[in-house]
């Protein structure tokens, strides 16, 4: 009876076998690599997504080109002012540069993928439509007709 609660004296606690730990971590690593995407650009504009409910997911990430629109971030206000700006890749751009940018992105895709190219417009919710309209016209001229207005899900 009492022996049940006695310490086993000499017996040592068996050590946990950690040899499979790397495998576990690697499995987790691969999972993360599958479900995430590389953050390609560092944002230079403030982008708060507008809210909507009828959203569709963008399917193939490799076919999507992003255009960011918004006011420059606080650190760049000194150089850029607080006007709404367009960001393509890592740099600020003007509307007339969009066409070249799209052409360049398009040519870097596989030929059979080019018709499915989608441009995602990530514009701040307080942007004036004038800028967006200009961008849309530029995209039409560049024959990038599939677009997506990026938005976040509105909580009901």
């Amino acid at each position, binding site marked *: 009876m009492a022996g049940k609660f006695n310490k086993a004296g000499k017996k040592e606690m068996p050590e946990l076998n950690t040899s499979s*730990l*790397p495998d576990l*971590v690697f499995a*987790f690593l691969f999972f993360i690599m599958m479900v995430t995407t590389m953050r390609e650009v560092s944002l230079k504009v403030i982008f708060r997504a*507008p809210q909507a409910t009828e959203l569709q997911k963008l399917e193939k990430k490799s076919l999507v080109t992003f255009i960011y629109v918004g006011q420059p971030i606080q650190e760049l206000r000194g150089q850029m002012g607080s006007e709404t700006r367009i960001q393509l890749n890592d740099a600020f751009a003007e509307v007339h540069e969009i066409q070249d940018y799209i052409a360049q992105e398009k040519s870097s895709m596989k030929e059979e993928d080019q018709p499915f190219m989608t441009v995602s417009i990530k514009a701040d*919710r307080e942007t004036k*439509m004038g800028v967006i309209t200009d961008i849309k016209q530029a995209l039409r001229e560049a024959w990038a007709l599939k677009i*997506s207005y990026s938005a976040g899900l509105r909580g009901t």
Partner: protein
Amino acid sequence: MGSKKKTPGINGTSSADIAFMLLIFFLITTSMDTDRGLARRLPQPVPKDHKAEDTDIKKRNLLVVLINSSNQILCGNEFVELSQLKDKVKDFIDNPNNDENKPEKIAVDVPFFGTRMVTKNHVISLQNDRGTEYQAYINVQNELAAAYNELRDDISRRQFGKVFIDLSEEEQAAVQEVYPQRISEAEPKNYGGVN
């Protein structure tokens, strides 16, 4: 020679640390957010030398939705609140009472449905001012999409007992034929007001 000698095993205790480092690196540099948005198709560009000719659309087939620079919505000829817009648009697209001023219905052969009266030629023309706020524009786009989605869900449920997204591809195409999405984003105009 020393052929009996065993090659010493590599000490693997640190590989867990290495894997952790890689894991943390990926956690930091990647982002998980899937991009969502309202998908639209832009019209083809108009050639520069080409005079924009007004395509002939019967007045009853056209619904103009206009957003002004103070984000007010004009639907048809009256101001509406955002919450009323969806029902108005649904009523316009569907035209359940065969109203004279709503889009004409044309008999179309649709798979699964047989011959159906469809408001095939309706156009919703979305126009905005340069000073309109983006959120207001997205709100309206969203309501238009919601109107189409509800109509499509409705008829899908009646015909197939499922909502639109759960249908097979052919069934979806058929439903799309019954309610074709025809939103036209007009050529930009400046309606006055501040830029």
